[in-house]
């Protein structure tokens, strides 16, 4: 029998009982839709994470102070200082950019508007490129500002809006604590990243923070303390070796061993790993749901195909009597099972893509339909059909024509 005829005979067999065929396909439909939605959700989550990585700044290394046990007889190293950053840049060639950060809070006043507890972030000129933020108008800090402890400020977008409304803040003077700073720029909105609202703070040269806002005598004695040093590595490939060199430089400068360091060196990767673990757990769960649905769907197909074979024993006998071989009968019933699973797969693909869209638009879950998942789902559905269709088809093929003709 020609393959096209096998298919058309199988199709006629299926469409003879449409409701049953549809119910049989339900398991496959759910399984396939689950595969596609699963992949779409995890791809969406990954895209969100990738964006967060990029918004942290690329190839970024964070150096923070850490609590250490005090070793008797040895002076406290005093944490990270500005000079540490300079030393690292000098000694580690794969560091291509750096920014330091020290912050405090103060109230800001302009005209009759006062904002309390605004984060004052002291930093260095490379900050925008290292942390991937943009200046919307005016300019950011430069080395000259830093060297001369220039009393200037760059405003976060929310701060600018609240203080100045629609007016242009550039060139205006604001009062921060008791210090007057001239606004030289406004940052583009960035939103909340890792729980911090980047738009409600202001930036000023770190030297200004050291002199005006953190006049701690202790800090002045040991150097200009910084909260975080951001380092930008040349590329993703050199991150590991860069981290090691940074650790060695700092350990030597602080006179500590790496086991008991008074600093931590982390990457973006470390920070997002927890998030990824959550996504992976979710993806695995959905994977199991999809897998179980496909198996259940397959068993449904097998069940109905066995019922089909029993019900159509007479038909099989008739076909055998007019010359159908075992292979002809087997192919016919396999084709039916395959069609059930493929049509089910097709409906599943449509529901999966539609479901992903709904998830993305109705929930706050981001979904990206992965083209490969459609192929994967189809392939799994076909495999299910062949695997669970084979036994009933084989049973049909091996019926004795005399018995089959006598059936009913």
């Amino acid at each position, binding site marked *: 029998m020609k393959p096209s005829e096998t298919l058309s005979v199988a199709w*006629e067999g299926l469409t003879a009982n449409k409701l049953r065929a549809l119910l049989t396909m339900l398991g496959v439909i759910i399984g396939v839709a689950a595969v596609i939605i699963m992949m779409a959700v995890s791809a969406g989550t990954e895209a969100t994470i990738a964006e967060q990585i990029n918004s942290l700044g690329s190839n970024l290394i964070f150096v923070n102070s850490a609590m250490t046990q005090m070793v008797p007889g040895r002076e406290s190293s005093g944490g990270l200082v500005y000079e540490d950053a300079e030393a690292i840049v000098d000694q580690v060639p794969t560091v291509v950019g750096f920014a330091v950060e020290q912050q405090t809070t103060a109230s800001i006043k302009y005209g009759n508007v006062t904002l309390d507890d605004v984060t004052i972030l002291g930093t260095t000129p490379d900050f925008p490129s290292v942390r991937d933020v943009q200046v919307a108008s005016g300019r950011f800090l430069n080395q000259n500002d830093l060297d001369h402890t220039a009393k200037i400020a760059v405003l976060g977008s929310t701060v600018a809006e609240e203080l100045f409304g629609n007016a242009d803040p550039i060139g205006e003077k604001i009062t921060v604590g008791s210090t007057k700073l001239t606004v030289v720029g406004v940052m583009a909105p960035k939103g909340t990243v890792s729980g911090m609202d980047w738009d409600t703070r202001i930036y000023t040269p770190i030297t200004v923070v050291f002199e005006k806002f953190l006049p701690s005598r202790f800090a002045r004695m040991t150097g200009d303390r910084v909260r975080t040093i951001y380092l930008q590595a040349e590329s993703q490939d050199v991150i590991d070796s860069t981290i090691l060199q940074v650790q060695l430089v700092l350990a030597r400068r602080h006179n500590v061993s790496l086991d008991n360091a008074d600093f931590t060196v982390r990457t973006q990767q470390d920070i997002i790993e927890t998030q990824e673990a959550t996504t992976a757990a979710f993806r695995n769960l959905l994977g199991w749901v999809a897998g179980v649905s496909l198996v259940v769907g397959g068993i449904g197909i097998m069940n109905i195909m066995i019922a089909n074979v029993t019900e159509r024993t007479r038909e099989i006998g008739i076909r055998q009597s007019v*010359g159908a071989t075992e292979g002809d009968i087997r192919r016919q019933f396999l084709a039916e099972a395959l069609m059930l699973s493929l049509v089910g797969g097709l409906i599943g693909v449509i529901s999966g893509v539609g479901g992903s869209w709904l998830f993305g638009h109705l929930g706050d879950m981001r979904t990206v339909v992965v083209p490969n998942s459609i192929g994967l789902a189809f392939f799994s559905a076909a495999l299910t059909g062949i695997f669970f269709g084979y036994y009933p088809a084989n049973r049909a093929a091996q019926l004795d024509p005399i018995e089959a003709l006598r059936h009913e």
Partner: protein
Amino acid sequence: MSALQPTLPAIEISGMTKTYQVGDAEVHALHGVDLRIEPGEFVSIMGPSGSGKSTLMNIIGCLDHPTSGTYLLDGEDVSTLPKNELAHIRNKRIGFVFQSFNLLPRMTALKNVIVPMMYDPDNHMTKEEREEHAIKALQSVGLGDRIHHVPTELSGGQRQRVAIARALINDPVIVLADEPTGNLDTRSGEEVMAILDDLNARGRTIVMVTHEADIAAHAHRTIHLRDGVVESVVLNSSSLREPGPEGEEMAHEAK
């Protein structure tokens, strides 16, 4: 058909036995049957139930293997062929006509007649050619206006005529009719027998099982089976064929 070798019998069966295993007991359905049917013959087989006539029909129809003995169909030994070969023999060299018609219920008359062509690996006709061929076959049994009807829309006689068209579609060596009028009223039965007579008159070999004497009388010969052996062979000189004296009886020894 077998006109190329007129001396070759359509069916030649010798020493055929068939034993079924039922639980611990052996049931001997056929005890040693010898049978020779010439091309163009019309033979009927009669016998009470349990005589082995169904078994013999199944073996002649290549639905079953004999336990021993040989069966030459058109000169070819088919008694030991594997299943798939038997399927091909059924497809191309045997046309079945059953008591219960055995049409595929959801298919139109036309599609039912096309089915054997689909299972013929040597049939390379296009879909259109097959349809044309099947329509001709249906027209030849007087159903040219019924080709798109499904079996439930046809009368019993019409269904049996569809079955005959299907049996003939691959030009078989023999037509095997198993109680072809058993489910039909007298009138429809006569129509069907008229078609079989006509087929035979045009040279088709027909083997028919029946338990009705007047139906059996359409054949040239009637073979009576009893207890798995050929009890007697009666030559018919039926009024339907050639008016004449009564049939001559030939005794056969049971083995």
